[in-house]
């Protein structure tokens, strides 16, 4: 028996492929939206993974440092390090800001860390780690900085000495790693007028500026202009220790908030990006419906264009299932062409997007199955129309 669908497709292959191509672009958008969602989730997780922290210790009663502001003393790590199961700690300070690069503002998240401690970039793709105490930086490649570039952060210039990859915030901003002390200064640095004003006020305060106590005024002024706070202490636990247990110990004995890495991930994915994820999810749902409606419309139109032929086919004895099979195969063919085009399109234009687009194989496989299911469902409308055709329509002109 002749494959009627294949013959029909071959008869108008240009139009058929063009239709599939158009559908493919829509599927490509759908795949890309899935990739944007996955990228957003991955962005939220990558920082947590890269820091190598098992427990995040933050200010009490806060969900810091990303979901809420968090500030704790930079010597809190000493007491945390004494807790059972803790092998290493690292102070970190995070702040999002615009830095100047060649006169161009670049939005980054500054990450202050202590080299060799939890919180440093997971790996470098070029250059070297930070070896000096001040004014060196490691940048994510997404910043488009190059080794040796000088970046202006507040009043100081930093030299980019290393590059890393996929170190972004859940908002997609690339990270710029600098020494912790510098980050603390950047975070709390006041402008010169404010510093002068503060010094004058202290000097005018007789309880601080005592003639009989030399050095007091300078000490207080120094305290006013320096920062001893960090946003979080990252903890690495010993092998065999449950991070959840260590986090509980921190909360109980140190009066700080502590999250295991899993909790922190849940916090970021479940709360911080949940609304954006829902938005994308709804958009995906709408796109799936629109794709289905378009496939249904295309299949229906293709069927309606063949009503006379279908009537003749039925009149000369073609089984209904042969006609239904023809329509179904054509719908599935459209789906396959559309999917292939969509996958290629999403793969090609994905990297152009400003945010990370993560196309997972399982999502691709799922999308393929959904596309075929949508095609099958959509073809039902065309099949119904075909089966309703009266074979007698071929008779009587």
């Amino acid at each position, binding site marked *: *028996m*002749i494959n*009627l669908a294949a*013959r*029909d497709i*071959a*008869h*108008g292959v240009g139009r058929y492929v063009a239709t599939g191509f158009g559908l493919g672009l829509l599927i490509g958008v759908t795949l890309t939206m899935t990739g944007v969602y996955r990228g957003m989730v991955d962005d939220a997780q990558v920082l947590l993974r890269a820091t190598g922290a098992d427990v995040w210790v933050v200010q009490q009663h806060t969900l810091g440092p990303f979901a809420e502001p968090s500030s704790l003393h930079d010597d809190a790590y000493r007491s945390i390090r004494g807790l059972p199961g803790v092998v290493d700690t690292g102070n970190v300070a995070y702040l999002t800001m615009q830095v100047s690069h060649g006169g161009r503002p670049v939005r980054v998240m500054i990450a202050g860390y202590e080299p060799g401690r939890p919180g440093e970039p997971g790996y470098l793709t070029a250059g070297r780690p930070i070896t000096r105490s001040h004014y060196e930086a490691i940048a994510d490649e997404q910043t488009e900085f190059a080794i040796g570039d000088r970046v202006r952060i507040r009043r100081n210039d930093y030299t980019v000495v290393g590059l890393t990859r996929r170190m972004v915030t859940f908002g997609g901003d690339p990270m710029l790693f600098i020494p912790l002390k510098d980050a603390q200064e950047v975070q709390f640095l006041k402008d010169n007028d404010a510093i002068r004003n503060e010094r004058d006020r202290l000097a005018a305060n007789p309880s601080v500026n005592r003639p009989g106590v030399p050095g007091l005024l300078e000490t207080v002024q120094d305290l006013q202009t320096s920062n001893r706070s960090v946003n979080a202490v990252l903890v690495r636990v010993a092998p065999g220790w449950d991070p959840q247990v260590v986090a509980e110990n921190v909360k109980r004995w140190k009066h700080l908030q502590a999250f295991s890495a899993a909790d922190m991930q849940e916090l970021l994915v479940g709360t911080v990006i949940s609304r954006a994820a829902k938005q994308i999810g709804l958009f995906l749902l709408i796109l799936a419906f629109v794709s289905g409606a378009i496939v249904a419309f295309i299949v229906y139109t293709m069927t309606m264009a063949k009503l*006379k*032929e279908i009537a*003749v*086919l*039925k*009149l*000369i*004895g*073609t*089984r209904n299932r*042969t006609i239904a099979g023809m329509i179904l195969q054509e719908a599935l063919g459209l789906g396959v062409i559309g999917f292939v085009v969509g996958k290629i399109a999403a793969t090609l234009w994905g990297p152009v997007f400003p945010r990370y687009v993560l196309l997972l194989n399982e999502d691709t496989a799922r999308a393929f199955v959904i596309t075929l299911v949508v095609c099958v469902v959509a073809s039902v409308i065309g099949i119904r129309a075909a089966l309703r055709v*009266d*074979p*007698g329509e*071929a*008779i*009587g*002109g």
Partner: protein
Amino acid sequence: MASTALAAVPQTDAPAIQVEDLSKRFGSGPTAVDALRAANMTVYPGEVVGLIGPSGSGKTTLLKCLGAVIEPTAGRITLGGELVYDGAWRMRDLRELRRDRIGFIFQAPYLIPFLDATDNVALLPMLAGQPNPAARARAGEILEALDVAHRGHARVSELSGGEQQRVSIARALANKPPIILADEPTAPLDSVRALTVVRILNRLAREYRTAIIVVTHDEKIIPTFRRIYHIRDGRTVEEAGEGRPIE
């Protein structure tokens, strides 16, 4: 049967088609329309019979009833000595009846545009279960008989109107049906081509012993029939035709 003239060709075979008191009513109640009122018709193997009548007289309805496309309301239809309708269809699968025992020729060729000429003809034997090579061989045979075998691989859109009509005739013959129902087969053709089609139908009827009913309005071909059924208000009247030879 309302017979006003004798059959021009004495028949010894059993009728290929026998219609007795066939009625078809559309709708019910006061709006019901009787499209056929006790129509009668007998067609013998190898005979080409004209079915003529004004628009709305019931020609198409009779053709659809004979083609098992619509169900009559009452009467009897016997095909090749087998009773197929007697107040109800006697066959379970009307699709098979149409496929194997009735050939259709339409006003327009209505060829399947995505198949070439050979496959348009071969489709019927294939639907009947013949393997593709055998079906194509059969199609080639008929196309040869109709002088269009050389266009066998041409797409429908590449065929002329006359070639398309020949291919549609070949399709009607593909399963060697004892009956062909032709619905105004010459309507879109000029007089030369119309007479050619009629000549072909007459030749095929003789060669294949096929009974052919030709529904037509075409004044050019009506004189060629030896027997004609006039249909008016759903009733048939048989007349002898001129049986004029076709040059």
